[in-house]
């Protein structure tokens, strides 16, 4: 009998749709039971919860899975900087009751061989719920930034308004970004918007800034800061927002 036959819990592999951009090497040595763990959060009707997290560089990688149920007219907001090392996955599954809202802002930023990803599953289970997701990826070296966003709209979830936007900047050749928006809509009175763009830093803006005396590294910092700021625009408290931006930008110091 081989070892594989006695593993109690099947580990995900990159053949699984939700793990298709994951790091196979990380999955191969991971503890299947640990990967199957979810944190659970209940947002009571009419209440608001916010989760703000930063995954700093260093370590052997991590998988964080959060399952949230938002009660009627409740609101859940999540803002994450994923600058994690190796394979760093932040996954969130949100089920929205009537009139509830889910706000998500995510930034992947890093170099090296890192694979940094967000996986979201937003379930509009009842009428009148809204969701808004903004993800920005800044990658260099041979790193990868991923965003898999699945939106499900149930049959009676009329007047759903769901928006999803992903943009990536690749600072060097060799860096990668992947996105996979997935919409599964069973209601007919629904607004779903999604957009995605992957590109390089604006060279025209770079020269304009240089012509005013800004060295390339400062110009790049300003441009990247403006770029990732979209993801944190939903953070109401300015000091918190600025701190998140500063923290994300501090990682850029390692870039070429």
């Amino acid at each position, binding site marked *: 009998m081989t070892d594989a036959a006695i593993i109690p819990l099947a580990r995900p592999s990159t053949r699984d749709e939700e793990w298709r951009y994951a790091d196979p090497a990380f999955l191969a040595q991971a503890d299947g039971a640990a990967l199957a763990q979810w944190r659970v959060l209940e947002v009571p009707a009419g209440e608001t919860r916010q989760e703000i997290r930063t995954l700093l560089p260093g370590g052997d990688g991590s998988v964080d899975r959060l399952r949230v149920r938002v009660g009627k007219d409740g609101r859940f907001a999540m803002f994450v900087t994923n600058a994690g090392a190796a394979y760093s996955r932040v996954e969130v599954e949100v089920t929205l009751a009537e009139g509830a809202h889910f706000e998500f802002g995510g930034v992947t930023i890093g170099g090296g061989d890192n694979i940094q990803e967000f996986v979201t599953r937003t379930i509009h289970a009842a009428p009148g719920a809204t969701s808004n997701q903004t993800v920005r990826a800044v990658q260099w070296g041979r790193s990868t930034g991923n965003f898999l966003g699945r939106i499900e709209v149930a049959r009676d979830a009329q007047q759903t308004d769901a928006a999803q936007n992903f943009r990536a900047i690749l600072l060097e050749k060799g860096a990668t970004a992947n996105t996979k928006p997935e919409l599964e809509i069973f209601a007919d009175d629904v607004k779903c918007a999604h957009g995605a763009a992957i590109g390089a830093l604006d060279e025209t803006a770079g020269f*304009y800034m240089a012509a005013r005396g800004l060295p390339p590294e400062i110009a790049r910092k300003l441009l990247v800061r403006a770029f990732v700021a979209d993801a944190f625009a939903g953070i109401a408290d300015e000091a918190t927002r600025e701190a998140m931006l500063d923290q994300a930008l501090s990682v850029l110091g390692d870039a070429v």
Partner: protein
Amino acid sequence: MLKIDNLHATVGGTEILKGLSLTINAGEVHAIMGPNGAGKSTLSYVLGGRPGYEVTEGSVTFNGQDLLALEPHERAAAGLFLGFQYPVEIPGVSNVQFLREALNAQRKARGEEPLSGGDFLKLAREKAGLLRLDMEMLKRPVNVGFSGGEKKRAEMVQMGILDPKLAVLDETDSGLDIDALRVVGEGINAIMRKPDRGVLLITHYQRLLDYVKPDRVHVLAKGRIVTSGGPELALRLEQEGYEAVAA
């Protein structure tokens, strides 16, 4: 101040400048006029060091320094200002933030102390007032949502704040109505008409030269200066056209 000697430059493998020579002394305003495709914008980009604009022959000396050996941001710190024909929009970066970073980067490169936030705002307010640009606009992202005229006035506010030794202004007059043209012209005079400054105006038309009187006018055609003269040359061009004068 600026000495361009036998400058040849290519863009995408095509030679655009074909032996251009020009000297600007301190205290002088020069105008370069010429038809579309003569190489006017190429000249400004070559002086600014834009990637993709390759110098194949010749030299450019700026206050005794080899300008072409400097990176674009080093040229700015050395006192060169490039006014863009199409000022670039930078979403998410405010004018105030952009210009303060730029000014302090230049000061640092020159071994000067950075300007404090308060002193910078005072300076910005003064220059915005000179160009009659609402200070509120400087709090908005760089050139985003600005009209053509506002962009050009904002360029001149930038010039006022950065206080260069030599300004190369590429069609700063395009997109301006008569009133804005006068404001921009007076701004150029106030900021740059000084004994230790120089200006190179690149323009299609005579009209900006009514406000900013040039000491010398040059006609650029097919990548080189074909004729030079005093301010009267601009009037002749306006009346007779480039073909007649440059022939």
